[in-house]
């Protein structure tokens, strides 16, 4: 311990030779200069004195015609001599430590429970960003509690979400919600035909069949009834359920202009970076004012050599678009129209089995009219 203090404080080892060095020692002691380890050497003494007293010693030495010679300088002051006047080097680490201490209420990093999958983590991350919780934001307990409630109300994907914030780290724990079984309605509803056709097969699970196989039905006609009167004319109600497979013939019509205007990306991509710290956002580039452009914002944790910083790097990708007139060949237009028709068909009858199709297209005044007649087998009960 004593060695540590000796190294910490600046001391000077010197030799005093020649003249009246005994008088020099007397004067030093009389003036209260704490000289230690005084050892006689030929023609004088060697001693150790705190560096701050050395100037006084030299004054006394001059009076006694004694020559002082410094043999060794010891202590932290001399070791840091190269840094004298460079106070920034000392202040830098101090300011750094103080600022880190002050930034404990800031969010430094977000970690997710290992049980959460990557898509679930991304879902929570997006929700957190939308609620102004990002790396660099200042968090309070009230805000966290409020965010937990909002997360649970905004997403049905999770049954429980917990946000634990300690020492700058936010740990997100969540339990995915179990899949809810679909509960069928029990109200008495009739099943009617959503398209005209010839019935091929009827499979009634609940209710009372009104039509039989081979019958032709029109759109909106009753197929399976939900109620029936018994012998005492009391209506027996049930939830109609079943499938009615029928052969249907339907025509779809689509008009596709051969020339139309659309917003097309120019092929350029503009990027705008900004850093979000606390409640402030610092833009590193000028604002990109491009109307009719696509914008996409991505957030990244700002880190240096893998060390997370309490800041978020926001990247705004802007894809400029221009109004362009597009001319289509009749064949291309026909393909577009066919695709639109088939999309409509499969949205109406997802399980349809196509038996035959007839296509017809005519071009009039710059528009292509596409007509497709489909003959298919599908469930028409609705």
């Amino acid at each position, binding site marked *: 311990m004593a060695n540590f203090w000796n190294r910490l404080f600046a001391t000077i080892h010197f030799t005093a030779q020649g003249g009246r*060095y*005994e*008088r020099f*020692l*007397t004067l*030093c*002691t*009389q*003036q*209260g200069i*704490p*000289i*230690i*380890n*005084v*050892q*006689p050497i030929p023609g004088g*003494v060697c*001693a150790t004195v705190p560096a701050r007293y050395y100037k006084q010693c030299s004054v006394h030495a001059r009076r006694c015609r004694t020559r002082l010679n410094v043999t060794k300088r010891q202590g932290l002051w001399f070791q840091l001599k190269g840094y004298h006047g460079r106070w920034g080097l000392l202040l830098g680490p101090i300011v750094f430590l103080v600022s880190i201490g002050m930034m404990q209420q800031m969010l430094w990093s977000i970690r997710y429970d290992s049980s959460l999958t990557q898509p679930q983590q991304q879902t929570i991350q997006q929700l957190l960003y939308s609620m102004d919780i990002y790396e660099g934001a200042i968090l309070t307990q009230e805000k966290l509690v409020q965010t937990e409630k909002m997360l649970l109300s905004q997403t049905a994907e999770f049954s429980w979400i917990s946000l634990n914030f300690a020492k700058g780290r936010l740990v997100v724990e969540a339990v995915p919600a179990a899949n809810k079984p679909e509960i069928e309605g029990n109200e008495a509803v009739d099943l009617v035909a959503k398209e005209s056709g010839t019935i091929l097969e009827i499979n009634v699970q609940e209710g009372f069949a009104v039509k039989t196989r081979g019958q032709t039905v029109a759109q909106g006609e009753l197929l399976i009834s939900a109620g029936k009167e018994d012998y005492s004319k009391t209506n027996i109600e049930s939830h109609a359920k079943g499938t009615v497979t029928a052969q249907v013939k339907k025509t779809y019509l689509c008009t596709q202009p051969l020339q139309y205007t659309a917003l097309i990306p120019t092929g350029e991509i503009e990027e705008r970076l900004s850093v979000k710290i606390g409640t402030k956002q610092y833009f590193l580039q000028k604002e990109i004012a491009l109307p009719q452009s696509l914008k996409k914002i991505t957030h990244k944790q700002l880190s240096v050599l893998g060390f997370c910083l309490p800041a978020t790097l926001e990247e705004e990708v802007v894809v400029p678009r221009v109004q362009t007139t597009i001319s289509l060949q009749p064949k291309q237009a026909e393909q577009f129209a066919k695709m639109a028709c088939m999309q409509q068909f499969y949205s109406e009858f997802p399980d349809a089995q196509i038996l035959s199709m007839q296509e017809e297209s005519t071009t009039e005044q710059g528009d292509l009219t596409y007509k497709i007649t489909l003959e298919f087998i599908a469930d028409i009960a609705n």
Partner: protein
Amino acid sequence: MKRKQKKNQATPWQEIKALVRQPEEGFYRQPILHINCFGQIEIENCKQILRYNEQEICLDMGLWQVSIFGDSLELCNANKGQLLLTGRVFRTEFSYGKAE
């Protein structure tokens, strides 16, 4: 007899006063020499160091001069009014200075 005893007996106030009395003037400035037989000599209120080398140190103690002869004599600490000397002491000489 009883009256004589009363005359010599100090009053309580005098006793308290005697307990907290200050020593004589200059008591703490008297030159003192403590010799520890383990080789450590403590000198208080030495006037000046007259000679100092590897074999001898001669100190002016006011009325007396003290010469200490020995080997590896080292002044461990030289503070205001106090010197701490270590080393192997062989001989000590006392001589009268100015007063004689």
